């Protein structure tokens, strides 16, 4: 949680800064912003509350940008030269998770891409990228876009996530249309008279929404949500343990410029067409890894005991030889025990495989497991 730590006077604030302070948040530097790591409730209770009811997260530090071209085919084609995801066939009002790749197939950032629901905006894609990467992402993309397609960073909007099993009930009170959205779809909407853009998505493994709203309306919207009995403000600490239990990657930890989408077990995010056709940076490496199998693979790991294994912990085989490293690890409040993910040599990646974790000089027994650690409860529309 010290990523992007800089001198206090240089830190940026989100439109919800005053609200965080008023709510008793502990503010820490994160990716160049002063962000709430926890509120009075504390990480553990904030985590459990999100899984039981609904948590409100300020994710305004993340980068929102529009990719604008003359029509969808042109914008999608431009983006597909930079990412391995299926963008051309992305439907109106649909979201896709994908990643910016470097020339050697390493991951520069992971991002969400949304195609506008409105035919009038055809040719516009909305991107949400990681806070710590946004400047580099924008420079990378801008330098590689063809004429007629441009990147427009959005600096005047906040992003608020509402996550948890009662998130849709809460949203419906002020925005009935929210509950009509399927998982990974988006729409423009009015929330209690405030214009916003809502997607049914998130980073916790729970049902939920991300709401993009004008910066000067963000506090009003957040306060309205917080007025509901089911909603508590939740900080970055619980956001991290929630996404870890859900088996979701944190950029700069579980994925980075050295890891490919195949090694990171993110092949599901690439369509058959894109895998076959290539046409994205590092396609040679990625298609070779798809064909021959990667040398290492991101896996879930559960320690047998109660001791958490933190990021950087060495993973060893039965003979004590190093076979990989933990990239995220800690205590899973809902799993009620330690959970971790990391990379191991592929021959050790089978679920059930026993490994050792070097914690305080001792190889502690652990095993490779399927992720997520806590079942996803994304919304599925009734047929």
């Amino acid at each position, binding site marked *: *949680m010290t990523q992007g730590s800089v001198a206090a006077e240089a830190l940026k604030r989100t439109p919800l800064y005053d609200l965080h302070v008023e709510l008793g948040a502990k503010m820490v530097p994160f990716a160049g912003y002063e962000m709430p790591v*926890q509120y009075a409730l*504390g*990480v*553990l*209770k904030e*985590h459990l509350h999100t899984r039981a009811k609904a948590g409100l997260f300020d994710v305004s530090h993340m980068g929102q940008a529009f990719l604008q071209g003359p029509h969808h085919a042109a914008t999608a084609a431009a983006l597909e030269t930079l990412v391995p995801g299926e963008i051309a066939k992305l439907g109106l009002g649909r979201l896709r998770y994908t990643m910016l790749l470097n020339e050697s197939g390493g991951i520069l950032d992971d991002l969400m891409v949304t195609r506008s629901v409105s035919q009038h905006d055809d040719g516009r894609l909305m991107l949400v990228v990681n806070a710590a990467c946004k400047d580099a992402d924008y420079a990378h993309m801008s330098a590689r876009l063809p004429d007629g397609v441009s990147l427009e960073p959005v600096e005047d909007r906040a992003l608020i996530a509402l996550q948890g099993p009662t998130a849709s009930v809460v949203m419906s009170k002020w925005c009935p249309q929210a509950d009509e959205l399927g998982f990974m779809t988006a729409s423009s909407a009015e929330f209690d008279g405030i214009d916003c853009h809502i997607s049914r998505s998130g980073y916790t493994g729970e049902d939920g929404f991300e709401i993009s709203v004008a910066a000067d309306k963000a506090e009003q919207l957040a306060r309205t949500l917080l007025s509901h009995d089911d909603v508590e403000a939740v900080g970055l*600490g619980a956001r991290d*343990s929630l996404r870890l239990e859900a088996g979701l990657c944190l950029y700069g930890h579980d994925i980075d410029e050295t890891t490919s989408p195949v090694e990171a077990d993110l092949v599901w995010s690439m369509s058959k067409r894109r895998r076959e056709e290539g046409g994205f940076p590092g396609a040679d490496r990625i298609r070779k890894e798809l064909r021959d199998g990667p040398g290492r693979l991101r896996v879930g790991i559960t320690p047998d005991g*109660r*001791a*958490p294994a*933190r990021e950087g912990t060495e993973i060893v085989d039965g003979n004590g030889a190093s076979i990989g490293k933990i990239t995220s690890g*800690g*205590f899973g*409040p809902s799993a009620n025990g*330690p959970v971790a993910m990391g990379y191991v040599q592929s021959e050790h990646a089978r679920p059930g495989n026993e490994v050792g974790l070097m914690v*305080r000089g001792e190889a502690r027994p652990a095993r490779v497991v399927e992720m997520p650690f806590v079942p996803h409860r994304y919304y599925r529309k009734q047929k």
Partner: protein
Amino acid sequence: MAEYKYAESHEYIRLEGDVGVVGISKYAQEQLGDVVFVELPETGKVFSKGDEAAVVESVKAASEVYAPVSGEIVEANGELESNPGLVNEDPEAKAWFFKIKLSDKGELDGLMDADAYDKFVEEQG
């Protein structure tokens, strides 16, 4: 009432006869946040003052608990293994970590009393 002494590394010790009862201070517990795991020393282990004697892990990070005095471990508080959250609830009473038989009671003079520790903590900001 037993007198509490504190180390700069935020352990407390209170004397019960020849034995010191050691845990982490209320302030240390607040800084750590929700405690989720505790690793305790085995009975019979001998530590010098300042040795790493136990581990406490919160949702945020792992921290060492140092022996505030030299001596031999005579008991560890097994209840913390099954209920680590007790460290947050009652750090300076029920959530003691271990009992240590002091080899040199003179070492207690090097520790802070409650007033001095309160000032020390205030200065830490």
